[in-house]
């Protein structure tokens, strides 16, 4: 199927031109930066900083992207409201748990218990919001035309955003800083902010955990069965509605956890915090190959890193002013580039087969 366009030479030519232009721009910029030293002079430490901060941002994207990927794998719908699941848990946990705990000094005395409490609250609220959304806005529409659930998802996204804005107000809420996580770790001579390191490690643990959950446990198998074929799964005695709800809950739990990690790194939360990371995570999920868990992880990390490293590397090399402003342009251009080469994403495979 992928060769269907072979005869249309001028389109291929155009696409190749497109790829070539992007690649040449990137390479030219990089060469100009590294060998001709245009723009700022960065030290090796600076580059490590770029990379590590990108990596931690990317691992957050990856955690959120999981929700998109899981839901897409099962329902073939873009759950636009996923970013709001991420926000709702974090906001609630911050306002009702983190701030009081921090004010009473408990958080600094027992940081691990405190963080677990915050994270648990965030996950529970996210799950609650997700399950409610699924029940009200998605389940009745499972047989409707494909775009209809997309619109209810958009509706749910707006609804939750402004619902939580109404609850907690529109101002920024500072996330408490943990005394134990101040400062930096020294890893093989590389200085890394403790919060960033914690985020990366926690994300990896959760990603691996989720992978095993989906691949090894009974519930995970049910999720995969439903993803494969809902009707057959139902015949096999799997409760499809419940499994789909569990899928949403799993994705939301990851998002809730990601939200707390977000709070740790960026130290402020607000009602609009779900939107941009949500879109980025969705991009990451597609980049990696939507429907694939390792794909989401890879896509997220790639996106985070390219956003951080791209501007100083090739945009500066090209002499473009205000490069960091353009990181979204880089992210989306990379997405287009990857999808032109591999329309099914970096790891995505199943989907392509299914549609053939």
């Amino acid at each position: 199927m992928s060769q269907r366009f072979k005869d249309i030479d001028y389109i291929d030519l155009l696409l190749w031109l497109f790829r070539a232009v992007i690649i040449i721009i990137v390479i030219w910029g990089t060469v100009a930066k590294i060998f001709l030293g245009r723009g700022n002079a960065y030290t090796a430490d600076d580059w490590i900083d770029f990379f590590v901060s990108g990596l931690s941002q990317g691992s957050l994207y990856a955690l959120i992207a999981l929700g998109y990927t899981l839901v897409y794998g099962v329902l073939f719908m873009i759950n636009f409201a996923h970013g709001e699941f991420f926000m709702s848990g974090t906001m609630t946990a911050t306002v009702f748990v983190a701030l009081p705990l921090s004010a009473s000094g408990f958080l600094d005395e027992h940081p691990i218990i405190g963080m677990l409490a915050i994270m648990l609250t965030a996950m529970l609220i996210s799950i609650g919001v997700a399950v409610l959304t699924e029940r009200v806005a998605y389940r009745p529409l499972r047989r409707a035309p494909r775009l209809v659930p997309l619109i209810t998802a958009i509706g749910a996204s707006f609804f939750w955003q402004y619902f939580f804005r109404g609850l907690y107000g529109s101002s920024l809420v500072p996330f408490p800083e943990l005394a134990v996580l101040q400062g930096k770790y020294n890893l093989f001579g590389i200085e890394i902010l403790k919060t960033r390191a914690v985020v990366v490690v926690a994300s990896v643990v959760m990603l691996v955990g989720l992978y095993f959950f989906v691949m090894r446990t009974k519930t995970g198998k049910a999720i995969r069965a439903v993803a494969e074929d809902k009707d057959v799964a139902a015949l096999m005695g799997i409760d499809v509605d419940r499994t789909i709800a569990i899928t949403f809950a799993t994705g939301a739990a990851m998002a809730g956890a990601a939200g707390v990690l977000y709070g740790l790194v960026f130290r402020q939360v607000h009602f609009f915090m779900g939107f941009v990371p949500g879109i980025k995570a969705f991009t990451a999920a597609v980049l990696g190959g939507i429907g694939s868990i390792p794909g989401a992880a890879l896509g997220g990390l790639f996106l985070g890193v390219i956003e951080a490293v791209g501007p100083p590397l090739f945009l500066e090399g090209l002499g473009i002013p205000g490069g960091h402003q353009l990181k979204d342009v880089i992210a989306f251009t990379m997405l287009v580039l990857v999808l032109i080469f591999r329309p099914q994403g970096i790891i995505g495979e199943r989907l392509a087969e299914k549609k053939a």
Partner: protein
Amino acid sequence: MPLLDAIKVTKRFGGLTAVNNLSFSIEKGAIVSIIGPNGAGKTTFFNCITGFYQIDEGDIVFDGRSAKGRSPDQITRMGISRTYQNIRLFAHMTALENILVGMEPRLHSTWLGAIFGLRSTLQEEERALDEARELLNFVGLTGKGDWLAKSLPYGDQRRLEIARALASKPKLLLLDEPTAGMNPRETAHTTTFIKQLRDELGITILLIEHDMRVVMGISEDITVLDYGEKIAKGTPVEIQNNPRVIEAYLGRGAAASATIEVAS
């Protein structure tokens, strides 16, 4: 010279060879069947002919011209059209519109003509509509032209798919299991209908079919595939008595039916 001549066609998917070194030809005006167990590569071969898949080796010559490397729309324009094993109508369009889409290769009006309401465009549309109504009549769907394709009964959907395929005035018609899911009465009706197509319209027909009564009843020539290879070729009588065919069907009948088709 045969109408269609496939020369040593090979198609691989990764490590799997779905069609292997297959040579096959049809004379003009013939009704030819391809049979074989599930997963034998029949539909894949159809997809190779119609340009859905690009073949890895060999060549396909249609009407004196090579069809290799052409896209499906070009192949349709050369004069081959097809139906699908699992009916693929345009579900949310009416029966009539489905046929009109089938007429595509023969229409020439442009979108600008449509916007400005040029007389030539309107006339062409009118002619096309008339012809589509005739085709509806021909396949026995009179009065159902304004039904959405998805709301037609199953048998009608099969017929509509054939009408859509006929609309391009093909020289060669590929039918992928045209009687699948039909009751014996419908099957008999369809069999007659296929014959009628060839006799009245002079269209050459290539058929994939599981129902042996249909195959044996109308085919003049049968090719048997197994594991992507041709294992037999001949008249119905010859095939019925061919030991390799019997083995292929009965020997691993149970196992074969569980195998998943490579591609739909």
